[in-house]
Every structure is written in C-alpha cells, then in structure tokens.
C-alpha cells in the first residue's frame, strides 16, 4: 500500500500530536516492510524474539524425537531397533541439541522479546547484532542436523570428552561438526548477552531505578553476565579441539605435553554455569507469574534479587563437581563439595519467598500457575538429589549411571522446562493477541507432570541398581527390563502432553479468545501496550514510579514526550537511577546482518574442511561488516 500522506517534516516531535497521528507516523518509521526482504532485514526485537522461540522449539522437537527413539530402543532388553553407533549419535544429538540449541537459546529468546517491553523501551540495544545472532544460531543448528542426516552426527556425548572426540579416536568429521556448532551457538549467545546487558543498563524507562526492575529482568541480567564469563571457556575449548583435529596441535595429547583433563576443566568451567544459564531465567519466569496469579507483590523482592546474584557467582564455583571421579586432591574436593552445597542456600531462599507469596495471596489456578506449582514440587525433589550427588562418596557410587540421568532431567525439565511452558501460556496473549485454551492447558499440564515423574523417577532406581547411562541395550538377566519398559511407556504420556501443548499453541493462533492489553491484570510494563505490541512497542515511553507500575496507577500511564517521530528514537539513561540522558537513535532495518551471518557461517563450515577457509572467509566477512556499519544517510545517523 502506498502511503500518500504528506512527508513528515524532518525532526518532528511527538509532543503536540494526537494519538492517531502519532501512531500513524511512528508506524511509518518503525514498521518492518512486508515481503522477503523485510523478513530478512528486520531488526525488530519482537520479530527476532519470536523467531528464536519458534526455532528453539523446533530443535526441542528434534531432540525429543531422538529421545523417543532411545526410549523405544531401551523398552525391552536386547532390542534390535537401533545399533550402538546410531545410539551414540542419538544421545549426543539429544543432549547437544537440548543444551545448545534449545534450552539456552530459548531463555535468551524470551529475554530478547520481553526485556525491552518490560523495561519500557522500543527496541533492544544493538538491534542489528541481534538479527545477526539469530542467523548465526540458525545456521549452526541446521549444520549439526544436516550432518546427522548424512550419518555424520556428533557421537561423543554432549560434552565431547577427549580422547574419544580427539583426532585419534574421533574419526571422520563428526566431532568437527560438534565443535563448530559450539562456535556458532556461543557467538550468538554471547552477542545476545551483550545486548541484554546494555539494554537493561541503559534503556530502562525513566524512573525505573534498580529497585524497580522486575525480577524477570534481573534474572536475565544475571544470566547474561554468567554467559559473558562462562561461554568463552567452551569456545576456547572447542577451538582447541578442532585445532587438535585439523592442524595437529597437541592441547589434549598427553604424548606431546598436552592433557586430556584440560578439556574437562575448560568444558565444565562453562558446563556448570550452563545449567544456571538455563535455570536462572526459569526462576525469573516463576517470579513473574506468581504475583500475577496470587494478586499481590512478591514477598521478599530484594531477597530474591540478591539470591539471583549470588547464584550467578556461585555457579562458577561448581565446575569441578563434575570431575570428582577423576581423583583430585582431597582438600580441593572438600572445597568444591562445600560450594556445590552452598548454592542450595540462595535457591532455598527463593523457594521460601515464593511460598510465602503464595501463602499470603489469593491464588488463581490458571495454566501458567499450575506449571509453576509443578515446578516447585519437582524442583525440591531434584534439588535433593543434587545435594546428594554433590557429596563425593555418593557421586562416586552413582557416577555415570541412570541416577545421574534422572537427576539432571529433574533439574532441566522440572526446573526449567516447566516454568518455560508456564511462561509460554502466560505471555502467549501478549505475543499473539489471543489466549491459549485453558481446558487443553489443564490436560497438557496433567499429562506432562505425571508423565515426567513416571518417566524419570524410576531412573533413579535403575541407576542405583547399576544401569549405566549411554548403553544402547542390556541383557535380560540384569533385571532392569520391567523398570525400563515402565519408563518407556510413561514417556509416551509425557510426549502426549507435549503434543497437546503444541496443538493448543497452534490452534489458539486462529481461534483463541481475544486477549486485550492485559488479560491477567498483571503489574509490569509489557502489559501496558497492545497485544501484540506495535512495532514501536510504546507510542510514548513510560515513566516509572513504582515497582508494580500497572497496579499502583490504574487510571493513567505516565509517559515522556519530546521524541522524534520521523526517526527511530528511544530514551537512554543512567545505570542506577534511569535518569534520562539521551534521545538515543535506534538503527533501521538492514540486510547486512543477514549477509554477514552467511559469510561467517560459510567460513565456520569451510574451516571444518580446510584451515584456509578462515583466511578467505575473512574477505566476505569484512565486506559484510563494513556494509553493516557504514551509515546510509538515515536521519538517525546524521545528528
């Protein structure tokens, strides 16, 4: 449609405009054009956030299918369905995909979508980097799964230990694809972490001082810092691995002065915080959902924020607990046992605050709240087994058995996927403008909760009975057959619940009840704008004077004026008090992040086959980046 309205005077401000004109002009400035080009070039954090979320769920589906294949294979002893080689690829693809392509990206994706709305700004900081990160992430995921389809699936476990993954035993290109997938996803993950930190530090609505930041936003801030200091470790490690494999370095080769345990140190320096990178945003979901559904502010807001920060710090003290079985010095082991257990304190504190809030409120049991309650129950159980494996003697006993598989699924599924599903139900109306069905929600919750516990609880028992993890089959004489069959059957309940959930999400897109701006009567800023939010999020940027702004002030939304409408502008302010400092320009759509991501992707993939790819790939990457940063004469560039 051609816009026939008169051209906007350069530098026009919003102050004097009536609402309809303002919306029309802002739309012209902020909207993503329709069509393929617009789709590839958009830098709208909502479009990119949605993409990230949908893509991550598709990877969840793929990893879930791998899990189904494993459970089919293990249902009966000496099953012939899947051979040992394929089984190795299956559990590696499952674990790798769940951790690198699903869990971490989806948490960051919720941050990408929600943080700018919750803090009252119009786009994330560095929007083009955001677009770039998505394309890099997508290419990494596709690469890994295409390789798997060509029988080159990674097969050395999700932590890819050397020497198994090294040049001597990891033949073919399987581990190279794994290592480069890590590079892709970590580049994307780090970029998003940087954006989220800068957004939260600088772009909060005027008046949103530190003590008024919503807890979910805090959780994303802490997570982003953990990412910043944890992910470089796995990038360095996977780079060393690929160098060992491709150009003959000796980082992990003991014969030439290298060391295999070095891999484990570097990997777990990242790997343990990784669990918290998944878990901290999940607790943020819980802290966002509870107040809305018990109709009162969070009890112990400050205590929860401090708990989040201390969990962030402590998450780095724990990496060695994955390596108790390697025989470290005695004192070291005691230290790490202590810090493994210490993290139970802030976690426990959070739980007490949640329970106190529910206790003092009037709970409404809608689907998001059900998932939160399911989470609390499951998490207490999973936490208990966690404290158990944190003790060295017990860890040595159950190390590498199904007890461990059970434990980490309690933490990851119970502790992160439950809140995540709750969060999907909770924010779905904001993202789509429609409600998900309550009836279906209830059923899917019931099936998932029962199916999950029935699947994973018995695995503890299998572990204590000695069943090792990562075995593709077992003998009838072991006596594990009954329990395994029960586990496999139960997992079909879990799968059925997830299918219902997916169906509900798809169906409600068309037929869900219209949501309105604030269907749950929630207190935070994302509910102050339309559902789905317009391209510019807020027609005027809000001013915050309360921790629960929409509950404190029900008649009016206080807002600022004086921003340009003919160029993308938002407000940036001081870190502590969010006192306005700048009318900060925000960049326009651009195809260059996509092109740069293609160049980077081709370089990474090429490097699996020849180190020269890095040299030649440098040229298109440089062109891409110059195109990206070169000013196009847009009004927002020229002040």
């Amino acid at each position, binding site marked *: 449609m051609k816009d026939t309205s008169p051209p906007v005077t350069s530098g026009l401000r919003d102050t004097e405009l009536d609402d309809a004109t303002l919306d029309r002009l802002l739309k012209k400035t902020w909207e993503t054009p329709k069509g393929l080009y617009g789709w590839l070039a958009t830098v709208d954090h909502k479009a990119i956030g949605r993409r990230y979320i949908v893509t991550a769920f598709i990877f969840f589906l793929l990893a879930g299918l791998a899990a189904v294949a494993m459970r089919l294979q293990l249902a009966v002893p000496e099953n012939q369905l899947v051979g040992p080689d394929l089984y190795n690829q299956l559990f590696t693809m499952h674990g790798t995909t769940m951790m690198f392509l699903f869990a971490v990206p989806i948490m960051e994706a919720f941050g990408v979508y929600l943080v700018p709305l919750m803090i009252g700004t119009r786009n994330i900081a560095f929007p083009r980097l955001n677009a770039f990160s998505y394309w890099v992430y997508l290419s990494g995921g596709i690469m890994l799964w295409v390789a798997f389809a060509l029988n080159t699936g990674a097969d050395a476990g999700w932590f890819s230990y050397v020497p198994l993954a090294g040049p001597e035993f990891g033949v073919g290109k399987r581990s190279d694809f794994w290592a480069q997938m890590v590079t892709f996803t970590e580049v994307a993950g780090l970029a998003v972490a*940087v954006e989220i*930190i800068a957004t939260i530090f600088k772009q909060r609505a005027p008046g949103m001082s530190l003590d008024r930041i919503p807890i979910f936003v805090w959780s994303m801030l802490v997570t982003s810092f953990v990412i910043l200091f944890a992910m*470089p470790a796995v990038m360095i490690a996977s*780079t060393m691995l690929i160098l060992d494999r491709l150009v003959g370095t000796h*980082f992990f080769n003991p014969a030439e002065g290298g060391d295999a345990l070095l891999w484990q140190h570097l990997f777990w*320096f990242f790997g343990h915080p990784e669990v918290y990178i998944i878990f901290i945003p999940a607790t943020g979901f819980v802290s966002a959902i509870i107040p809305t559904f018990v109709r009162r502010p969070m009890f112990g807001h400050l205590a929860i924020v401090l708990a989040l920060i201390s969990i962030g710090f402590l998450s780095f003290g724990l990496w060695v607990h994955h390596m108790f079985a390697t025989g470290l010095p005695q004192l070291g082991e005691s230290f790490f046992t202590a810090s493994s257990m210490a993290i139970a304190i802030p976690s426990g504190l959070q739980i007490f605050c949640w329970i106190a809030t529910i206790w003092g409120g009037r709970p409404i049991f809608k689907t998001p709240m059900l998932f939160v309650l399911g989470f609390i129950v499951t998490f207490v159980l999973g936490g208990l087994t966690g404290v158990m494996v944190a003790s060295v003697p017990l860890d040595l006993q159950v190390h590498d058995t199904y007890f461990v598989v059970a434990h980490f699924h309690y933490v990851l599924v119970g502790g992160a996927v439950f809140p995540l599903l709750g969060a999907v139900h909770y924010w779905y109306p904001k993202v789509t403008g429609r409600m998900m069905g309550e009836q279906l929600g209830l059923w899917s919750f019931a099936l998932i909760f029962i199916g999950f516990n029935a699947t994973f609880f018995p695995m503890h028992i299998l572990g204590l009975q000695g069943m090792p993890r990562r075995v593709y089959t077992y003998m009838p004489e072991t006596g594990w057959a009954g329990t395994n069959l029960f586990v496999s059957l139960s997992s079909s309940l879990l799968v059925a619940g997830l299918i219902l959930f997916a169906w509900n999400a798809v169906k409600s897109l068309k037929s869900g009840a219209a949501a309105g701006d604030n269907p749950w009567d929630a207190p935070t800023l994302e509910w102050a704008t339309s559902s789905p939010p317009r391209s510019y999020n807020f027609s005027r940027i809000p001013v915050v004077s309360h921790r629960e702004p929409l509950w404190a002030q029900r008649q009016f939304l206080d807002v600022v004026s*004086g921003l340009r409408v003919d160029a993308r502008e938002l407000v940036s302010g001081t870190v502590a008090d969010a006192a306005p400092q700048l009318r900060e320009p925000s960049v326009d759509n651009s195809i260059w992040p996509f092109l740069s991501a293609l160049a980077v992707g081709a370089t990474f993939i090429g490097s699996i086959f020849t180190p020269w790819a890095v040299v030649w790939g440098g040229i298109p990457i440089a062109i891409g980046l110059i195109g990206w940063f070169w*000013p196009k004469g847009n009004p927002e560039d020229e002040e």
Partner: protein
Amino acid sequence: MKQRLVLNLRDLPTYGFGTESPMWWGTLAFISLEATGFALAIGTYFYLAFIAQGWPISAPPPNIWPGTIVLVMLLVSVVPNHLVESWAKKEDLGKTQIGLTIMSIAGIMPLIVRIYEFPALGLSWDENAYGSILWLLLGLHTFHLLTDVGDTLVLMVLMFTRHGKSGRRFSDVSDNAFYWDFVVASWVVIYFVIYVFPRWQT
C-alpha cells in the same frame, strides 16, 4: 490505557561519550568476554607448564625481539590514542582525521612485525603442546589487533566523508580508542607470559 505526559525530553542530546553511551557499555561487555577468553588461554598455558616435566618443552625460550618491538610500538601508540579520544570528545573534525590516520599507521606497523614474530617463537604449533599454546595466544592477540585496525581504518575513511560531521561518529571514535587500550593492555600481559615467564623459569 490513557497517557499522561509528565516529562518532556525535547532538549536531551542525541549522543554522548563514555558511560552516557550504550555503545560504550557494549564495548565494555565485549572487552570483558574477550578478556575472559584471554585469561582462560593464559590459564591453559600455566596449566600445561605446571604438568610438564620442564618448561618450555624441548625448545629454548622464544626470541624476545619481535615481541618486544611490538610491545614498544603498542605502548607508544597509547599517546596518540588518547589524543584522538580527547579531540573526538571536543568534536574537532580536523584533528580527529589526523589522529585516526596516525592510529591507522600505528596499528598496521605492529601487524607487520607480527609476521616475523610467529617464526621467532622458535617452534611450530604441531611440535608439542607448548608450541600449540604459544601459537594460540599469539593468534588470539593478532586476531584482536587485526579487527581493531580494520575498525580504525573504516572509521578513518568515514571521517573524511560527509558522514564524519555527525556527533555519533565522534562517539564511535572514542569507543574505538577505548577498545585499543584493551588491545594494548592485553598484549602487555601476554608478552610477559610468552617471553618473560620462560626466561624467568630457566
């Protein structure tokens, strides 16, 4: 919901320097994560040294000269770097143009010496783990040097075009100067690891 105008931001500037600018915080975040990467690579160096029978493994300490020349060049470059930064903050276009030209040269010179520095390490990356970690450390730093020189060159060219007259460009120049300080500081640390530590060992 009805809106109530409570604050008019008409008179706020559209760019700022240092902590005022979101880009400065983004740069700081990138520096933090890259510094973590350096720290872990250096940690790996000492880890390997700790488990080795003798250090350096079957090689003399690397030839100190090329690395030292780079060190001197980088340290000297800090002076024009800070001059450019202050000129940019004063939004003095002419001086900023000159400063960036000097900084581009100051960035390319150590890169040329780098070409001689790699062979001067005295062994190849595939001889043993000591060689591997040396090449990794030097490679990591070279990568940072290269990207910042690239950034400086692009900025320099920009400042000579009509885009140079925008206040945001000056802010970009000052963030670039901030990043250059990091490139220099990280070399001081890595220099000590690569060249001084093995001498002090023996």
